[in-house]
Each structure stands twice: as structure tokens, then as C-alpha cells.
């Protein structure tokens, strides 16, 4: 990765964009200390990354078997809060209070009692967000949290993250495929692509000059109706959007 230099501060909501395979998930895993940085230097909360850092809250992209279980939502949070220590799966009063605090922050109090398999995609995401807030982290890493949500729930989720970033002073790194859902909520954009990276305000990064440099080919940026359309030479925005839906490896 070349050309990447920058710092994400408290209360800052940063979208990590780029095509599939550009290294968005790899970046998050490097910050989590699961993968070593290939080159350069990375400091997380003032120190080199280390696995299991209590100051980081994380929602992984792949969600597992838990979604089909009869267990109540609170068990997910309880296991995440106490799972790093040995012992029986019982909660102390303080742990119970911490779970209630996290649930209240995202308005998921009612979800905690419901069986996991009865939750919708949006409800499950809200619960996972509460879980990521356990232990008062200062950095939140969200890997493709909008996948499998409908547009209304996407907008609600983004607004919730924006509020949390500002009210709780959280630094947020949020990977996504699509920037339009995030317009108006994010502070800066980190764009990864083809071994290069650009980091800055939306209008700096999502520009013809920067994206053409990132992709090594002419890229057009169209702003219309408060939305941004990005497309390559010879492809119309419509066809881009279409290919995007099909899950093809395309720009934004």
C-alpha cells in the first residue's frame, strides 16, 4: 500500500471504500493485530497493534451460526464480555450493568430478551453494535455493516454510528461498497485500490484526479441530486450500478 499517511482522531467517522480485494478487511485485521503490517508503521491508540486490545470494538463481516440459535440476544453480548476469561457463563452485577449500558446506547434493550433466530438483519446489526460498544472502546471497526440491510435500515444504522461517534467521542472506521448512503454522515474517506490509497475529505478523494490516479485509468465523477456517481471511461453510471448489484468487482 503506498501513499497512505494519516491519522484518525476521536469522534471521527471514516469510511473505508474500494473495490473487492483492495484490502479493506485486511486493513481492519491489521489494526486488530491479527495480521502484521507489510510495510510502514501503524499505531493503534498510541501503540503498535496487538490482538485483543480492549480499546477496540469490532463487528466482523462474516457472521456465524449464532443467528440460527434459540438463545436470547443478551447471550451474545454476555459471551463477548466474559469470553476471554475462564469460568462459568454467569454475569456479575457490574457486567450486567455494562451490557445494559451498551444496549441503551443503541436502543436495543428490547432485542436482548428475544431469541437470536427471530431477529431481522437490522435488529441483529443493532445488537452487534451494542456488543462492539462493551467495555467503552475508543475505536470502532465495522466491516461491511450495511451488507444485507435494506436502504431504510442502512440509513438508520449510519445515522446511529454518526451520533455515537460524536456523542461518545469514538473514532470509527467503516468499510462499505457504496458512498451515497454515507454522505452527510462521514467526516473523511479512506479509499483503497490497486496498491494505492487516498485519505481525505470526500470532495478531495472522490474526485476525477484522485480516483484516476488510484485506478490507473480515467475515472469520471458525476454529482447529481445530492448523490455521487463514479464510473470508468466507456461505462455509463447506470451500467455501473447494475454491475454493482450483480456483485461484480467494480468501482464504488
Amino acid at each position, binding site marked *: 500500500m503506498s501513499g497512505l499517511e494519516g491519522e484518525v482522531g476521536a469522534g471521527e467517522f471514516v469510511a473505508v471504500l474500494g473495490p473487492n480485494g483492495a484490502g479493506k478487511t485486511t486493513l481492519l*485485521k491489521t489494526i*486488530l493485530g*491479527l495480521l502484521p503490517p507489510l510495510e510502514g508503521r501503524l499505531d493503534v491508540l498510541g501503540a503498535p497493534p496487538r*490482538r*485483543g486490545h480492549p480499546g477496540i470494538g*469490532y*463487528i*466482523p463481516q*462474516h*457472521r*456465524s*451460526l*449464532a443467528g440460527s*440459535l*434459540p*438463545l*436470547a440476544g*443478551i*447471550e*451474545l453480548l*454476555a*459471551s*463477548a464480555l*466474559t*469470553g*476471554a*476469561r*475462564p*469460568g*462459568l*457463563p*454467569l454475569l456479575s452485577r457490574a457486567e450486567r450493568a455494562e451490557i445494559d449500558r451498551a444496549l441503551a446506547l443503541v436502543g436495543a434493550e428490547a432485542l436482548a*430478551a428475544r*431469541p437470536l433466530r*427471530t431477529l431481522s438483519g437490522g435488529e441483529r446489526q443493532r445488537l452487534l453494535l451494542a*456488543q462492539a460498544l462493551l467495555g467503552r472502546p475508543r475505536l470502532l471497526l465495522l466491516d461491511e455493516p450495511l451488507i444485507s440491510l435494506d436502504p431504510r435500515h442502512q440509513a438508520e444504522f449510519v445515522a446511529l454510528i454518526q451520533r455515537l461517534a460524536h456523542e461518545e467521542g469514538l473514532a470509527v472506521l467503516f468499510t462499505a461498497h457504496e458512498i451515497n448512503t454515507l454522505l452527510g454522515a462521514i467526516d473523511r474517506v479512506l479509499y483503497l485500490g490497486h496498491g494505492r490509497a487516498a485519505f481525505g475529505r470526500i470532495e478531495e478523494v472522490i474526485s476525477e484526479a484522485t480516483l484516476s490516479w488510484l485506478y490507473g485509468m480515467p475515472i469520471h465523477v458525476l454529482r447529481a441530486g445530492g448523490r455521487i456517481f463514479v464510473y470508468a471511461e466507456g461505462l455509463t453510471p447506470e451500467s455501473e450500478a447494475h454491475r454493482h448489484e450483480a456483485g461484480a468487482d467494480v468501482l464504488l
Partner: protein
Amino acid sequence: MFSYDFMRYAFAATALAAFAAAASGYFLVLRGQSFAGHALSHIGFAGAAAAPLLGVPVLAGFLAAALLGGLGIGLFEEDRAGRDLAIGMVLALALALGMFFLHLYRGAATLLSALLFGNVFAVDRATLLALGLLTLLVLAAMGLIARPLLFVSLQPELAEAKGVAPRRYGVLFMLITAAATALASVIVGSLLVFTLLIGPAAAALRLSRRVASGLALTFAFALLEAWGGLALAYATDWPVSVAITFLAFLVFLASLGAAAPARLARG
């Protein structure tokens, strides 16, 4: 019924096996690994059948083979697609190996029946002591790893990121389960270990949304089925493993019935 030594030993032994099976079984069902538990009891059967040939106690033979099997399943568990296939093949091979060892051994007929369907009335003081120690180990180990095991079972990716290694706990859990199947096999035999290991947990998971109460229910069902089966066998002269399996099936049916109205109400 309690005036006989063998009955008192039988009640103590079934309680021990029920507790060990309950502790492991709840997580087996939660993790979707009940088939692995079934396979471990068959792998143990091969070891138990080989024991007389090697001059070691049957329980030790069962335990050694099951532990090896547990280690193997735990280590190669990652590949979920090929897992059931591989386990099924090893399970069949283990049964065949067990029969082969018994074929080499005279007096195999009584041993075969005891290995496949259990023989709780043969439990003596020394065996009971061994069962007690093994149960203590299983319960202590499960008590220690319950939290991290739950974490890696529910959210392996997140657990990994938090420094809790799913594989390590997967292997540990399979080893504990191997010991639990050895205990249960003494009571209900290799073929019906599934009854004690899975039955109570499957019913409890249908009735409880919380882990703590679900675990408590699993222990209660296991003891109810084990002791109830033993008493039923004493009263009717049926084989103990048959009586326990009947009860386990009844409890599971009842849990389906009890959970059904709630599901209908939810739509």
C-alpha cells in the same frame, strides 16, 4: 431397591455419567457437533474391545481411543463441508475394528453386549471411584472453559480478534467430550451414548433461551432420565439402557410439545 450394594453403586454411577454427559452435551448441541459425540462413542468402542487383548481395563481402553478420536476431530474440525463425511467413515471403521478385536478374543459375546448397551450393574467400588474422578475432571474442565467455549461457539471471528483461539477451545472441548462419552458408555453402552449426551441438552435448548438456565435444565433432565431409567429397569426387568433411552425420548417429545405453542404464537 437400595438394600443392594450393586444398586447403590448403579445409582451413583448413573448420576456421575449423567452430569458429565450433561456438561458436555449442552455445548455439543449448541455447536452443532452432536454427530461428533456419537462418533466418539464408537471410536471408544474400538478401544474398549481392544482392551482385553492388551490386558488393560475396558474403561481405560475406551477412554484412550475416544481421547485420540477427540483430538483428531478437534484438529480437523475447520473443514466443515468434509467433516460429517470423514466422521462417518471413521465411525464405521471404528465399529468394524471393535468387532474385529472381539473376534480375536474368547468370551466376546458377553463383553460385546456390555460394550454396546452398557452394564451398570457390573460397577464395583473401584470402578465407581474411577468414574467419580473422571466426572470431577470433566466438570472442572468444563467449568473452566465454559465462557471462552461459549464465545468461540457463538462468534468465532470476533473471539479470534479478541485473542480467544477457537481451535484451542474446540480441541479441548472434544477431549472433554471424549471423557464424557467414556463415562456414559459404562451406563448406556456405545450405541446409546447419544441418549445421555444429546437427549437432555436438546430438550433443554428447546425450552430455555438463557445459557445458565439451559445448562441447569440439561443437568436436571439428565439426572431424571438416568435415575428414572434405572428405577424403571429395576421395576420391570428391562435393560437399563433401554429404559433410559425411552425416558430420554419422552422428555424430548415433551419439550417439542411445550415449545410448539410458543412457536405458533410467534407465527
